[in-house]
């Protein structure tokens, strides 16, 4: 861990002021991401601004909006009666995330700002399951450098290349990837929020602005851009519109382990069937891109169709028309269709 200064602040305004004259300051909230980044040298800030004493951590509800503080703990949000009643998919997504212990600490804003679990980004933190030993195994290990930077990753070291190309492709993106990066975004919650068309309240030096959840992430994976927040900006709240989408949407995550694993693929959404055809639908995918993927092509495809598995399969195929597959992640197409079918036809029960 590089040395850094540490300041605990009591408000968003104070946090923003502290970061104003320190270009490389970073915020610390729940710590479950940042402390590991610090240990791994993924970030080397000169100033750590601890937000844990700030009070934008409440859940509130009015007629139109369910508002969740950026600093609210994931476990608190999942257990909140208003959240469970108004937007149960949020609880589903949170309870499918990490482990209960992590969820007790991690915050909502921090969850949305997670960085990819791509093994090459993490310094070849290799997933042992379901993968075959990668071609890296045959790379001559001459004059090995210190480990964390030994694997190529454009996100970690600009221009160093992408290890996935010849390596572990199980988690790689199939949509919205760029030639230099096929990372996926790990947040479960973001997929649900994209489907619910939630907004983020963002505060920074220039004041407050409102950002759609989808707009938080670059449209095409850009190794140099994690998110669209400006320097010093904070997510102080997530605002979820109260209504049909929030009430009906569900979340389904497919992973290799029963817990503590990131999605191979995930799907969020619902449909409304009237007169035997789909009258309203929302659908979003996780585990497929460096952002939560709102499947608007699939949605358009489903409107007016019969609510059958075939319709879903065709809609997902349409959504994936421009998908780019690697040998190691081809399975995602079928798995995604299966997940979307299950989500819409046989939605997972509520906790």
């Amino acid at each position, binding site marked *: 861990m590089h040395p850094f200064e540490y300041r605990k602040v009591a408000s968003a305004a104070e946090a923003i002021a502290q970061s104003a004259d320190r270009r490389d300051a970073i915020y610390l909230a729940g710590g479950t991401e940042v402390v590991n980044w610090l240990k791994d040298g993924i970030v080397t800030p000169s100033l750590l601004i601890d937000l844990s004493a700030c009070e934008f951590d409440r859940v509130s509800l009015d007629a139109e909006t369910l508002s969740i503080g950026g600093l609210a703990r994931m476990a608190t949000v999942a257990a909140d009666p208003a959240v469970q009643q108004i937007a149960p998919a949020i609880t589903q997504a949170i309870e499918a995330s990490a482990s209960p212990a992590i969820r007790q600490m991690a915050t909502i804003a921090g969850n949305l700002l997670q960085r990819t679990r791509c093994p090459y980004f993490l310094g070849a933190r290799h997933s042992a399951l379901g993968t075959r030993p990668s071609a890296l195994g045959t*790379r001559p290990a001459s004059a090995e450098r210190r480990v964390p930077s030994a694997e190529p990753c454009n996100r970690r070291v600009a221009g160093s290349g992408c290890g996935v190309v010849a390596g572990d492709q199980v988690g790689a993106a199939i949509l919205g990837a760029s030639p230099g990066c096929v990372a996926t975004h790990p947040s479960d919650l973001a997929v649900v929020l994209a489907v619910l068309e939630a907004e983020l309240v963002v505060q920074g030096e220039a004041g407050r602005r409102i950002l759609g959840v989808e707009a938080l992430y670059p449209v095409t994976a850009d190794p140099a851009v994690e998110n669209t927040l400006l320097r010093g900006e904070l997510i102080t709240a997530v605002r979820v519109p109260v209504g049909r989408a929030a009430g009906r949407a569900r979340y389904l995550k497919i992973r290799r382990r029963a817990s503590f694993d990131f999605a191979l693929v995930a799907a969020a959404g619902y449909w409304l069937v009237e007169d035997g055809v789909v009258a309203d639908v929302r659908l979003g995918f996780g585990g497929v891109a460096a952002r939560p993927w709102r499947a608007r092509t699939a949605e358009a495809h489903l409107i007016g169709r019969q609510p059958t598995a075939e319709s879903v399969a065709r809609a997902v195929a349409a959504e994936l028309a421009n998908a780019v597959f690697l040998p190691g992640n081809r399975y995602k197409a079928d798995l995604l269709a299966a997940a979307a079918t299950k989500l819409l036809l046989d939605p997972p029960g509520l906790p």
Partner: protein
Amino acid sequence: MSQSSRREFLRVAAAAGGGLVLAISLPGCGPRAGGGKGPAVDPIDPGVFVRINPDNTIAITIAKSEMGQGVRTSLAMIVAEELDADWNQVRVEQASFAPKYGEMGTGGSSSVSSNWKRLREAGAALKGMLVAAAAKDWNVDPKDCRTENSFVIHQASDRRTHYGALAAKAAGMPLPKTVVLKPKADWKLLGKDRHGVDVGDIIHGKAIFGLDLKIPGMLYAAIERTSVFGGTVKSVDSARALAVPGVKQVVELPAVGDGINIHAGVAVVATNTWAALQGRRQLAVTWNPGPRAAESSEAYQAFMTAAVARTGDETVNKQGDPDAVLAKATKVVSSTFETPFLSHATMEPMNCTAQVTGDQVEVWSPTQFPDWGAQALAQALKTDIKNVQVHVSLMGGGFGRRINPDFTVEAALLSQKINQPVKVVWTREDDLRHDFYRPCSTHRIEASLGADGFPEAWRHRISTPSIDVFYGPKPAAGWGPNESDGSANMSYRVPNRSCEYTLLESGVPRGWWRAVSTTHGMFAVESMIDELAEAAGRDPYEYRMALIDNVWWQQPPDSKDFPFKAERLKGVLKMAADKAGWGKTMPAGHGMGISCGFDHLGYAAEVFEVSVINNRLRVHRVVVAADSGPVLNPNGARAQLEGGITQGLSAAMKERITIAGGAVKERNFDGYQILRINEAPAQIEVHFVETDTHPTGFGEPGLPPVAAALTNAIYRATGKRVRSLPIGLRMV
């Protein structure tokens, strides 16, 4: 009821303060046979002590290492049973290394079996002396006295005295010439559930594991070891490490071979763990990758696949002419089974605290083998073993990893270099990447069936990197017998059978992982027998029952005194099948699988009930029947079986160590995944067949049958044979 008159291993003495000490010398004491390299010791220098204190407490020295298997509890129970001691007054003391303790090494599920007789006789002898002392006092016939709960009682005169009050007098009594051991029916402690003796400390966080130890003036060290096996340090720039506050010194440590096998590394010594770890991150080490740097799991697999497709380099054993029968057979069933390298992944990473002053070496180590540790210390630090002290702490799991003395010797070498006491702390990453791994393996079995549907020929070819080869010079051949335990000595009757072995050269350190070679051999054999039953159109349970036989013309190395008995294996197989309801109709997508085996002198059979629905594998129920003789602490025995089964399941479903560029790729529990509580079977039903014989252990025998019981069940659920591990929780 058994009698014994061999009392030469007992000695008794008065203890300071009015107590009594009985000393027992344990198996393995005395000069090593054949002038081996072990230290020569006085053959009757007694090792284990039972001390009866005037306050009526009884202290029992345990010279085996506790790693969760309950040995401190079960060995104490054995003494206490024959002594008729009040269990609540029994205290356990951990022995530090001394030659007088004989074989202190804890492994192979052998602690109970190797100590059973002497500990019982010691308890009985001591009881006899206490009775004699009381009888003399009361002027009655010892035969009219009885003992109970640490009291000698004379019913007729309604007199009772507790052991503490009798201890001093009893010390003056002669050792009984013969003792009568209790029949099982009279057991009061043994055979009943007992909590572990360390539970009280553990639940308060007071139990001291190796990582928790602190000695005065101690420094802390983290060692950056070569990630490429066989690599050496080319150069070190330690300037930035030394600039970390608290870092005192950076020390280069060359590799040590000689069976100790310490990796080349650079130690950062600091005033606290945190500074040592921070300093290590700031090191800039350039490595010479060494000759193993191009090795990979893929290359190993390619070699092993080719090796089992041809005649093995070594014929482990052969009976009849399997090659000729197979060549003529119209139908040959052949299957290839693959297993990966595995890590022990004990919850407490390796560590050791050492203080070396001149030629005096003292270590505090969570080691399973303090005796090997002491020998290795003497060897590596070039001192006499008399100058070596090894204290044994509690261990956060062992599973065979802590047999090796590497972590113990490494700490002592560092202490010697810096001339200060030091604790070497391993992180999870250090531990996972510098283990002694369960070898990867490939097995190919080819078999043909006779007209009766039973196998006529069976040719089993194995390729692995041998464990033993890693610890010594490599002769031309002769590694097969150990590596093929569970394979060459499988217990099914086949008139023409052979086992061949081909060594895979590998730089990956290999070691003894719970149950060792049977963990892969039994997977192959028990899968194949299922496939043959299928080919013969027979029920796999009935097929096994018909074929299990005393065909052990080659006994496993440790079974000399406990030969394999086919009836016992059939006994557990029948019980497991009966309890599981073998043969009952299962819902679609569900299946039952069965498997059995003999490992580390214990017999186990298992039935797994699984479902595979939407590619999602779930284990619903596990039934195990085990026979290691009489069960001394059912609580502990159940825990050992459940633990072994779950570890086996974890390996079969999730665990794999991947080698790339001569190094381990996995770093932490995110990459090397072990089974979590919500993935473990909700139900493991344990049943005992208690054959009336010398008891053996439960720590290992439950593990080897797991993988095949699981994959056989998957086959019944899906029609798909899984022959390569790990399976993955989601079968893609």
